[in-house]
């Protein structure tokens, strides 16, 4: 066990956990930030996507010790009122079916748009192919990302 400070959504938390604990479980079990989802724990599905210093990262693959003192953003901190352009676009297009993967999809999409404000279809397909949606909402995710890209420019 080790005490360490985590900066999550601009707040500092002190946790006392095994330093090898994947950040995913610290967020969910210890900080009760359950918007970051558990899907596979092997970095294959993207449900646990967060931002580490602004970059999309699969939190199941990141030991908490490696995240200490870094800027961590989870879905709960993406926007104050759930009104980030990507979240708004998701509602506009009514993307979700079961909704379980969508927070990870949204975090990935927000990171993509930060890197590439005007992504092509191929950019979107490649970047988003790390995130599985079992319900098959891919077409709406693509459309929502394009919508968010447009509204972000305004």
């Amino acid at each position, binding site marked *: 066990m080790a005490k360490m400070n985590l900066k999550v959504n601009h707040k500092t938390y002190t946790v006392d956990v095994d330093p090898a*604990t994947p950040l995913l479980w610290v967020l969910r079990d210890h900080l009760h930030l*359950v918007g970051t*989802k*558990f899907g596979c724990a092997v970095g294959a599905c993207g449900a646990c996507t967060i931002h580490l210093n602004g970059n999309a990262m699969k939190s199941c693959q990141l030991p908490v010790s490696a995240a200490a003192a870094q800027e961590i953003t989870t879905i709960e901190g993406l926007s104050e009122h759930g009104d980030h352009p990507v979240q708004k676009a998701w509602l506009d297009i*009514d*993307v*979700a079916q*079961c909704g*379980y993967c969508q927070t990870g999809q949204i975090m990935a999409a927000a990171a993509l748009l930060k890197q590439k404000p005007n992504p092509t279809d191929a950019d979107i397909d490649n970047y988003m192919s790390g995130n599985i949606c079992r319900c098959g909402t*891919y077409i709406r995710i693509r459309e929502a990302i394009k919508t968010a890209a447009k509204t972000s420019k305004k």
Partner: protein
Amino acid sequence: MEKQTSRRSFLKVSSISGGGMLLGFSWLASLKPSEVMGAAGTAPEWVELTGFIKIMADNQIKILSPNPEFGQNVMTSLPMLIAEELEVDWKKIQVEMGDYDTPRFKSQFTGGSQSIRSAWMPLRKAGATARMMLLQAAANLWHLPVAELTASNGSVMHKATNKTITYGQLAEAAAKLPVPANPVLKKASELNLVGQSQKNVEGAKIVAGKSLFTMDYQVDGMLVAMAIRPPAFGMQLKSYDATEAKKMPGIKDVFDIEVYKKGYERAGFDTRTFNHLIVVVGNSTWEVLNARKKVVAQWESIVETKETVNNFGRKKEETIPAGLESSDKHMQQMLALQGQKAKVLRKDGDPEAAFAAAKKVIEKTYSAPFLPHNTMEPISCFAHITDEKAFFVAPIQIPDMMKQNIVANLDVPADKIEMKLARMGGGFGRRAYGHYIIEAGLISKKMKAPVKLIYTREDDMTNGVYRPAYIVTYKAALDANNNITAIHIKGGGIPEHAVHENRFPAGAFDNYLAEGWELPSNITIGAFRAPRSNFIASAEQSFLDELAQTIGKDPIDFRIELLKKAKASPVGKNNDYNADRYIGVLELLKEKSKWTATPKGKHRGVAAYFCHNSYVAHVVDVSMKNGLPQIDNVVSVLDCGIVVNPDAAKNMVEGAVIDGIGNCLFGGLKFDKGVVLQQNLNQYRMIRMREAPKKIDVHFVQNSIDPTGLGEPPFPPIFAALANAMYKATGKRFYHQPFINELNKKA
């Protein structure tokens, strides 16, 4: 009607025709909203009208959604049915997920594409009942004939005198009135909410990452539990040593449980499961994961057993064979059994004579492997069993089916069961089988604490209730003029076959034979989106395509011709389809896809199917890129009667199309000596965005037929539509799923 929990004994119970609803009362302040997830419980000010509607004096109106939600959006579309008849402004309605309380809601069944179909009348009647009671309350108050009053936008009006009163002001009085025996429903032409797209009522919570799912549920003092199951089907626990595991940090206990008691007679949705498990319980997920690795277990082979299963009153003996099964061996066994005698399911005319006289016989064999559901949210369940009650937060498609299982295996009286029906991170059939509710309950009972049982993805994939493995051979006899004189379908599977002997093309051929056989297995199976249909449609519709090509006919015209014949002079009895509606989707598909004008450089395939009371046809356009089909466009046409929430319905169709493409291209769970070979998503290929179609164009046949199924029907026919398009693109027919294997063979 039985009592479900003590708090519900406050209700004045009254059963009325059709809806079977509970009558109004004022909710008592003594109710404590203990361990309520999401919504903040029921405040005392709510007045209840029917079991579904709650109204506050300030005219806040809440509608309870009865059916478990796993992404089909019934939490929006079912309350819409009530709101339609209630005459309220949908934008002002609060929707709340109902708890497990089937006597109140009559039906809480998510499965078989039945939600909208079976709720269509009862929920509308619930809304109409409440509307009529509110109107009557206003009539009594104003001493006016009820016929002079109108209800709209959450208020009652008397136009002649310009009087208005809100439902909120009327609710208390309305709740005391007798329930009308025959609620008057709006005419089809008067429906103004049904048919108008409404957004997912939980959309904002989903995109903000709010706690909605069982996996997210937490309470103070909650423990985390995981199980250790046999490493292979055909094995069981012999002994174990948990000494080291118990010493690990954060671990509370390690013990073993028997899920179902000896002699427990399983019912319809009580899947067989690994029954003897080692359980590790601790403070956090990571600690339990680590401790689980320290348990040393010995396993042994099972012996063959026979169990009696009560399948909705029909008792059936099930054989569970011993042995360690492998996929390669399964294929050899299935091919061998195809050459042996099978059970005749239906026979019309004299197929043997027709085949003997045939000038040409076309015979093709199709197969498909076991499939895991791989819901995005792995299986989990929260349980807190105390002397007072058995409380669960559970992802379960048919909660009432778990009642007798909970009573028998957890020794809990039925009236002490309380269950929150959490939003499910996908279902697809997997969560019809709630063995995990019993597992969580047993662990909570032993620990005397609130417990969340978690399956890792590996646990989920290796302890599945998989789609069975199937095989089928289609045979057609042709005469000298290329007329089809007989059809023979012979199918089998492990452990069930997928032949629907009365479905199309039965009825269209004078000589017809359908046969099936089944091979028992110790691998657990269950419903998977459009059970059996999802395989048999892929085979049937590929075969019809090949048949049309052989006799030189357009594949759509060929199907329409057969359907017209089946309508004009149906052969045999019990033909299970409506030829006109079937033709209807094909005709509309021709128009919407511009069927005869295949875009340049693209290759086109078509398929259609009828299941779960709805008709679907797809056209798929592909072009081959790097050895894989790039799906440029899909046009889907559906006849599922009236569509309640069109945009959400389109979303579901898009999802079914993508799900089907993914499963037929990549899906297939392999076994080697009983061991599941792909145990996580880095070893099991699922469709990702880059493989998804570029575009899906969805059209509904416009009619005024009461709604039928939608979650399942678009799934089965997409497999063959893709296979038929890939044939056009590659010159190769695809008989064995997953098609990626066949594509790789070519390369």
